[in-house]
C-alpha cells in the first residue's frame, strides 16, 4: 500500500472554496429569480418555479457544503527531491506523479479573494501538461515555488 502524500491544503482553503460556492449560488439565485419573474409575468407553467428552487437548493448544498468538503479531504501533495506527487479529485481520486526532471517552470498566482485570505495557487508545468496545487499559504507557495525550481535545476537526467 502506498502512503498518501504528506501535506494537506490549509483549513483556510476550505473556507475559500466555500466562498466560491456562495458566489456561484448567488449567481444561480439571480438566474432563478429572473426565470421565476418571467414565469410569473408570462404565466408559464408552475413547475418551472419548482425547478428553479430545486436547482438553487441543490447548488447551495453541493457547491457550499459537499463538494468543498470532499475536495479538501482528498487534496494532498508532497514535494520530494526527485518527484512531486499530487492527489486530487472528487469522485475519481487522481494521484499525479511528476518527476522533478520534467518540471519546466513553476508559477504562483493569486486573485483578489485569495489575496484577502493570504493564499496562493501554484502551477507546475511540464513540457506537455500543467498541474495545480491550490490554496496554499502565500509564504508556503513562494517557498515551494523556489524550492521546486531549485530542485528541478539540480535534478539530472540520469536515465
Amino acid at each position, binding site marked *: 500500500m502506498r502512503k498518501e502524500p504528506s501535506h494537506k491544503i490549509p483549513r483556510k482553503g476550505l473556507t475559500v472554496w466555500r466562498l466560491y460556492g456562495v458566489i456561484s449560488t448567488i449567481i444561480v439565485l439571480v438566474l432563478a429569480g429572473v426565470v421565476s419573474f418571467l414565469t410569473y409575468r408570462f404565466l408559464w407553467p408552475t413547475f418551472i418555479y419548482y425547478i428553479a428552487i430545486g436547482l438553487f437548493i441543490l447548488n447551495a448544498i453541493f457547491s457550499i457544503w459537499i463538494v468543498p468538503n470532499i475536495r479538501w479531504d482528498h487534496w494532498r501533495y508532497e514535494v520530494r527531491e526527485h518527484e512531486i506527487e499530487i492527489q486530487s*479529485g472528487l469522485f475519481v481520486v487522481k*494521484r499525479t506523479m511528476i518527476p522533478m526532471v520534467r518540471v519546466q517552470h513553476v508559477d504562483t498566482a493569486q486573485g483578489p479573494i485569495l489575496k484577502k485570505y493570504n493564499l496562493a495557487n501554484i502551477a507546475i508545468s511540464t513540457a*506537455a501538461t500543467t498541474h495545480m496545487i491550490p490554496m496554499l499559504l502565500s509564504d508556503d507557495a513562494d517557498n515551494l515555488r523556489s524550492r521546486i525550481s531549485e530542485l528541478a535545476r539540480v535534478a539530472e537526467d540520469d536515465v
Partner: protein
Amino acid sequence: MSKQIYKLHPISTIINFLKGLKELIIPVAIILFSRFLNRSEELNFWTDLFPILIIAIPVIYILFSGIIKWWTFIYWFENDELRVEYGLFIKKKRYIPFERIQSLNYKEGIFHQLFGLVQVMVETAGSTNGKPEVELTAIRKDAARLIEVQMNHSKNQQRSIELGSNIEDGEIVTELSNELVHKMPNNDLLVLATTSNSIGVVLAGVAAVLGQFSEYIPYDLVFEELRVFVQFGVILIILVIIVGLLLAWLLSIAITFLSYYDFSVMKESEKIIVTRGLLEKKKVTIPLNRVQAIKIVENPIRQIFGYASVIIESAGGAISEKEKKMTLFPLIRKKRLDPILNDLFPHFALDLNVTRPPKEAKAFFYRVDFIWLIPVIALCSYFYYPFGLFSFLLIIPIILLGIWQFKTTGYAIMGNQLTIIYRTISRVTFLVEKKRIQVVVRKQSYFQKRKKLASIQATVMSGLTGATAKASNLNEEEANIVLDWLEHEKKGHLER
C-alpha cells in the same frame, strides 16, 4: 567559407502562384456560379465586367507576390547558420543555427519532378504551430544536398570541438550511409488503400464543397425534381447512393495509393528517413533522439489479417502541415514488424509478459458506458415507443466491446520501459521509456476503490498537448507499482 548567395529556382514563381490559386478556387467558383444563376438581370457592360474584376485582382496580386517572393528570396550559409532573407518593402531575415535544425524534409510535386527540383522544409524544435521554420519552395537537388552537407559538416565540427578536437575534421565527414529498413510491398499497399479510412476524408470534402454552395443551390427546384425522382422508386435512390459511396471509396483508394506509393523507411546514423508518394514525393526525416513514444495500432479489421500500423510520437517539430504524429508504418505485417522495430529501436523490448486487469475488473469496462446508454435507451423507448425498445439491443455490442477491451488491456514494466496496451476500438500498444514520461496519473473512482482497482495513465510530450495512454481498471497494487517505478530509487525525503 566564402559567402555564396543562393536563389530559388524560377519555377517557384509558378508553384507559389498555383498554391495561391488553389486557395481562391472556392470563392471564384461561388462567384461564377452566382453569376450563372442571376442570368436573368439585364446585361450591361459594367455589371458584366465586375465579377471578372473581382476575380482578376486577387489573381494578379497572387501572381506578382509569387514573383516578388522568388525575386527577393535569398539564402546562404554563414557562421554555421542557415540564413534566409526575403521581402520587398519589409525585409524578413531568419537565421537558423545548424545545430538547432532538427530535420530537413523534402517534397516533390509534379512541377518539381519535371525540372529535377525539390521543396525543402527546415524544421526546428520551435516549429510546433504546424508550419516549418523555413520553406525553400523549389531548389535543385544538388543545392538541397548542399544544405545537408553544410549542416552535417558544422554539426560534426561542433561535436569534435566538444570531444576535445583531437579528431581531424575530414575524418568525421563520412559519406552518409542509408540502410533500407522496410519497403512496403505492393499487395500491402493495396490492402492499405482498400481498408483506409480516407473515404471519410473524401465524404467530408464533398460535404464541405456542398456547404460552400448551399446558399446558391435552388432547393425549391431541386426538391421539385426530387419528387419526380422519388416516384422512380426507392430502389433507384439506394442504387444512386451505393454508386456514390462506391465512387467515393474508389477515389479514396486512389488517393491513398498515390500518396503512399513506394513507401520506404531508411535508417541513417541517428535518423529515420521516410519516403513516399507517386505524384508528390515526400521525404521526411525523424531524428531518433526526438522520438518520445511508439504506438502500434491494430484496428479490428486489420488485426484479423495480422496487420498493424506504427505511429511515432515526436517532440516539437511539426512533421508536415497537418500531421502532428508521424506515421512510421501505415501498414505492416505484424510478423515483419518485430525485427524491424528491434533494428530501429534496439532499446525497446517487444516481447513482454503483460499484467492484465483482475477478473473483478471486467464489469467496469462496460459499466461506464451505461451512464450515457441508459438515458439514450430511455429516451428512444419513450419517444418512439414500440420500435424504440430495440435500442435495448445496443447493450449487447457495448458489453461485448467492454469485454474485448478488458481482454486487451494490460501493462508491462521492463527495465526503463513502460508498455501500456489498451483498446478503444483499435488495439494500441504504447511503448515509452522512463526518461520520456512527463507525468503518470493514477485514477481511482469510488467504485474502483471498493474493488481495489485503479487506472494508470502516462503522458509524453507530443505536439502541444502531449500524448496519453491509459490502462484502465488494473489491480490497485499494480497501479502503485507503476508509480513506484517512476519514483526515484533513492528514498531521500527532503522534508520542509
